[in-house]
């Protein structure tokens, strides 16, 4: 394995111009796949970079980051006996899919705790900074943090999920110069030191967004999770051009001045989503490099998936743990650390692309940040496609204004009743009335956000907050405004229409439907994602 040439000299991402000899291209299609032949001479495919080499000794790299932080004091010097220490960490929405054990969070937090133990710190709390996401289960916490940490802290109620609706558990730290309220988890806010352990899978994560959003509540989050902000975030994957991040950074200023001392630890991982070997490794290869074995594996896998019931397919994919490797770890001052993180993130993800396209295509996989161990419902299909994938650009969108987006996903009319109760009502009641994000925000957001039953489920069950489906819709607001049409290939027709999109049975049909909007013989660009890539469009 160590001698694998792909590990030693990973190839960068690139743009392939499709010609007649180009084989059919792989499209993810939920918990299945499609192979689609793209029109020659006017199509191009953007391939992600191969996985960058992981750090040879992650433990040592973590240790060095903690004792040689960027623009901050070494972590051991910040630890004092009798102090109040809080360690917050990203929730299970990162990374995707979940990574093989030991998770990076476990590796880092164990070292942080060891330093705390050396200083004799007794008062330590660990908080899953999940903002308005669902609570993590014991098994999920154990996966992220390992049994040692869980068994040491959970029985004493010192390891728990952030509760943004706990009336006694939140504090207001102040307002920004734009009059944005900043709220924070009380325990974190009143700590002598807040250590935040982040995991950057995309460039959107990390920085002040970690604390300003992850440990905040609805009254703070609503200042940047809204239609106007999302429409001005071009894109929200590009921190310096993202209004979402500007707002978070303003809130970060307030935290800096009125909140706890924050010691930020950020990490990046490589693109090794499906591994170099094993049944899914074929998904990480370029189609013309598939060996006979790869082709046989793919055909067998596809046939098997076709025959399986949905529940079995879901179980298989939810069980997949990615062999991600740590590519960087940096700690210290939030702003300085995040800039280094972004460099590492872009190094893995950015692919230079010249010019925009009339039609953008991509296949949506089985997972997004909000359906880990859950169901990918139609709202999440919209959020992943129009929110995340559409925004995988720096500079300008891959697709021209008024262009067409074609996504491939089964889009079942199906919801996880425990995880997504408010999504069901949003989809069945509100979207039947309107799909306009502004109208939905104006008329219904407050009602869903303050609904007692949703709040109860968020706090005591494993439900996303009542307002969360609105955020999913806002996430795609920029794309909705930008695009001329959205087509979903192979989706449940009723569900697709409820989203306000057009269903198509085949890619050929979808391309014909697209020509109604962008004219005949449009240029087509396919985003070959995942593994993750981000287009640097010039």
């Amino acid at each position, binding site marked *: 394995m160590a001698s694998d040439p792909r590990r030693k000299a990973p190839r960068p991402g690139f743009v392939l111009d499709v010609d007649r000899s180009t084989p059919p291209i792989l499209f993810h299609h939920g918990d299945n796949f499609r192979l689609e032949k793209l029109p020659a001479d006017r199509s191009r495919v953007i391939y992600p970079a191969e996985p960058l080499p992981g750090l040879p000794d992650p433990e040592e790299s973590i240790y060095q980051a903690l004792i040689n932080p960027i623009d901050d004091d070494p972590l051991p010097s910040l630890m004092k006996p009798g102090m109040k220490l809080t360690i917050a960490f990203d929730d299970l929405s990162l990374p995707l899919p979940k990574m093989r054990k*030991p998770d990076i969070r476990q590796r880092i937090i164990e070292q942080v705790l060891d330093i705390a133990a050396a200083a*004799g710190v007794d008062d330590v709390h660990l908080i899953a900074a999940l903002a308005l996401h669902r609570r993590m289960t014991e098994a999920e916490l154990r996966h992220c943090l390992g049994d*040692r940490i869980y068994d*040491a802290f959970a029985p004493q109620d010192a390891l728990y999920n952030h509760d943004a609706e706990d009336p006694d558990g939140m504090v207001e730290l102040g307002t920004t110069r734009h009059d944005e309220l900043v709220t924070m988890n009380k325990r974190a806010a009143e700590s002598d030191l807040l250590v935040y352990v982040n995991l950057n899978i995309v460039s959107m994560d990390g920085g002040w967004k970690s604390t300003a959003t992850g440990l905040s509540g609805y009254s703070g989050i609503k200042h940047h999770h809204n239609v106007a902000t999302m429409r001005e975030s071009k894109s929200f994957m590009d921190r310096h051009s993202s209004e979402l991040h500007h707002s978070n950074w303003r809130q970060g200023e307030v935290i800096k001045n009125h909140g706890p001392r924050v010691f930020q630890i950020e990490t990046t991982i490589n693109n090794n989503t499906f591994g170099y070997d094993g049944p899914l490794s074929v998904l990480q290869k370029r189609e013309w490099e598939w060996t006979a074995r790869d082709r046989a594996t793919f055909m067998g896998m596809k046939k098997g998936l076709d025959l399986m019931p949905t529940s079995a397919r879901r179980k298989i994919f939810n069980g997949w743990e990615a062999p991600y490797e740590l590519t960087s770890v940096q700690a210290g001052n939030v702003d300085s650390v995040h800039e280094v993180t972004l460099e590492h993130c872009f190094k893995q993800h950015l692919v230079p692309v010249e010019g925009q396209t009339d039609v953008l295509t991509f296949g949506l996989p089985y997972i997004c940040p909000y359906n880990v161990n859950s169901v990918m419902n139609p709202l999440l299909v919209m959020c992943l496609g129009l929110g995340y994938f559409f925004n995988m650009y720096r500079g300008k969108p891959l697709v021209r204004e008024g262009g067409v987006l074609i996504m491939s996903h089964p889009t079942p009319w199906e919801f996880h009743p425990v995880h997504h109760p408010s999504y069901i009502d949003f989809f069945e009641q509100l979207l039947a009335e309107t799909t306009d994000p502004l109208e939905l925000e104006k008329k219904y957001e407050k009602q869903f956000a303050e609904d007692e039953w949703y709040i109860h489920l968020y706090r005591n069950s494993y439900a996303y907050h009542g307002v969360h489906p609105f955020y999913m819709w806002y996430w795609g607001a920029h794309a909705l405004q930008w695009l001329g049409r959205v087509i979903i290939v192979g989706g449940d027709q009723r569900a697709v229409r409820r989203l306000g999109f057009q269903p198509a049975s085949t890619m050929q049909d979808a391309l014909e439907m697209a020509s109604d909007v962008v004219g005949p013989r449009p240029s087509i660009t396919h985003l070959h994602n995942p593994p993750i890539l981000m287009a640097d469009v010039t």
Partner: protein
Amino acid sequence: MSRLAKQIGLPRLPAVLSPVRRFRALDFPLRAPSTPRGVAPLPAVRRTGVDYDTEWARRKPARMVRAAIIEGPMRFAVSGLAAPDRRGQDRLLGLEGPIIFAANHHSHLDTPLLLTSIPAPWRHKVVVAAASDYFFGTRVTGTLSSLVIGAIPIERTKVERRSANTAAELIDEGWSLLIFPEGGRSPDGWGQTFRGGAAYLAAKTGVPVVPIHLEGTGRILRKGRSLPRPSTTSVTFGRPLKPTDDENAVRFGARIEREVAALADEASSDWYRARLRAHAGTSPGLTGPETGRWRRAWALGDRARGAKRRTRNWPDI
């Protein structure tokens, strides 16, 4: 029959020698030479104890047999008798090459438990340092020990450089070593002071030492008992240790013992409290209080977490 042969005039057949007689009738060089009188015979070659040659047990056929035994009957027996809870194997992630595994020692069950717990890259290329006087006392026990657990003989009653050299050579050849630095099973449930073997070998070969704490095997088959009684056990792997520049074998040995004690603390309390005590130098020692026997036995009760005791309702209702 012979009378009949005589009557009909058949010639007499030569007497058939028994195999023993035939063997005795053989002469040199088919038979060993006798030593002439007046010449001092060479001293007899010892083939037991530290002199037992275990090289054959590290060849492929023996390794395959051993792997089959470990993965088959041994694993089955261990899970039935000991129901092990294995922790900390993730601490070995990223390690390559041979390792010295150093564990505390309560029972004969410790070796099978560890051989089925050590992660796969090392499990099938590990030799076990075993007492030469006990496991290699006869050719039969030596053969069985080398075949089944991959034992190599180590002299524990006197200082013997040969055993250490053999172990070091094997480590250099890529074999991992499982060693019980206490030198023998616990006589009373408490640990014994670690000897310097593991630390010396680590310093000599430059390979890391992984401390391991075993809990519960003494309840199943303690020293002096012949029949096992099923119970639960835990195996806790620690972080790999290497001697620092200013640390000699004695100090490093003491650190290995402290780490095993910290793992014992971790197994009986929780990881963070154990780390706090380890850094403060207040981890409970493995060797127990230096008091009278009954008080040591009394104190032992505090550590026996999860010990299963049979309860009986009386009267039966």
